[in-house]
């Protein structure tokens, strides 16, 4: 009897080892799995009733940092204008832009609680970029939200979000482009600083 138990244990150990070996490629999670896990983390925070709003925001911020590639998001939003900013200006731009986004979307996000998210499929854009299609199902409608992710550092990070067919970075690119066609990068940064300040009050 004992030997059977021991053998069983060994079998379990062996199969675990085999499983670990064969699932090694799973280290490189697919874009869809990555987005799914990120979004599910967000949903978990949103649905956690025991958390206060400020604690939720803190947790969401941490997930956001893992989920998004902030530098790429800024680069894509500026497009060709990115090079017009000096290195110092770029370094200021990235967190400023992030704050604008956070202020604008945090409250909106916190209002979502019971909506269901469906993860549809992924579409390859280039070798290093993939679009993951998802839908948020609310009581009155379905909102398609696509995450464009970029490979880097062994994982996939979001550099653009397409909500109801409107690309976030394209939209900001049009705005930044419009401002930079008439103003200097410094004036753009000043506009952003002012925006962040206004949002806080």
């Amino acid at each position: 009897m004992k030997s059977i138990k021991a053998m069983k244990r060994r079998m379990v150990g062996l199969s675990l080892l085999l499983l670990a070996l064969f699932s090694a490629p799973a280290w490189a999670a697919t874009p869809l799995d990555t987005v799914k896990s990120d979004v599910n983390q967000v949903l978990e925070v949103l649905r956690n009733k025991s958390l206060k709003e400020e604690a939720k925001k803190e947790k969401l911020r941490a997930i956001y940092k893992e989920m998004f590639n902030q530098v790429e998001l800024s680069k894509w939003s500026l497009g060709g204008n990115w090079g017009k900013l000096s290195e110092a200006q770029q370094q200021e731009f990235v967190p400023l832009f992030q704050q604008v986004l956070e202020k604008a979307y945090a409250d909106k996000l916190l209002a979502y609680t019971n909506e269901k998210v469906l993860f549809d499929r992924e579409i390859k854009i280039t070798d290093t970029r993939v679009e993951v299609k998802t839908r948020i199902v609310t009581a009155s409608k379905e909102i398609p939200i696509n995450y464009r992710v970029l490979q880097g550092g062994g994982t996939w990070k979001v550099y653009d979000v397409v909500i109801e067919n409107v690309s976030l970075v394209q939209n900001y690119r049009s705005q930044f482009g419009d401002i930079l066609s008439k103003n200097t990068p410094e004036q753009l940064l000043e506009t952003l600083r002012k925006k962040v300040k206004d949002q806080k009050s």
Partner: protein
Amino acid sequence: MKPFPFVVVLWALVAVGCAHGPQSAAPSAHFDQPAQAMTIVPASYTVKETAPSPQVAQNNATTPGAAAPGVLPTEPREDTDFMAETPSAETATIADPLEPYNRAMFIFNDRMYFWLLKPVAQGYKAVIPEPARVSVNNFFYNLRYPVRAVSCLFQLDFPCFAIVSARFVINTTLGIAGLFDPASSDPNLQKHDVDLGQTLGKYGVGQGFYLIWPVIGPSSPRDTVGLVGDFFLYPVSYLDPWYVWLAVRGYQEINATSLVIGDYEAFKEAAIDPYVSMRNAWAQYRQKRVEERRGAEQPEAPPGVPRY
């Protein structure tokens, strides 16, 4: 997020729309200059975008070859993808020669929302529970069936016609005059959002230029023609006398707005320049609508990629 809550408000302005309606949708040379002046990236990177006219820019969407980087020898290609546009050439731009007028109209519509539509919709929302408001919304959506049916037919998309018709029959009967949407529980009977402006776009008619109507919101000569057609295909438009029509139409808008309060506010909050942001969002949204109908009709999941 629905970025432009005004788009569908027809109200009394349709008459105005008719008067200004069927302009030439092809942008004349006159508009080419402003078209370039407002492109959203600086000159050194506008290789693809300084297409001679917005119409050409739009056509690029279907002929990626035309926008391929290979044919632009003058511009040294950066290694970085972010500087180029996305490969589908989906960058949506729209000429805006009437910007001063449009900006004024944007402010007018903004005030209309915050001073009139939103307070009324908020009061209404406080009294009527959400399921009822969703049902009212479904009811009006169902009533728009002729717009969808005719658009599918004009697009010679018979599967589309069959689906919207089946949806109409099911939701009108089982869904009690369209108040409920049992058809959507069948994955083969998903909503098809088709309209006449999109139909024109599918046949290659360009937007022309950006044009904001009071109350109705962002549009263009092409989409205005579409809206006029949609108006005549919408049964509510035939209500008589006119004030009954106006009341029903107004009620529909109030109900619809009550379901999206906060969206426009969030949109404005996120924007650096709400006017430019709206213009771009609308252009992207409409272009995508057209592309959807032009390209592979129903893009299916490639084999091997699981559907969730």
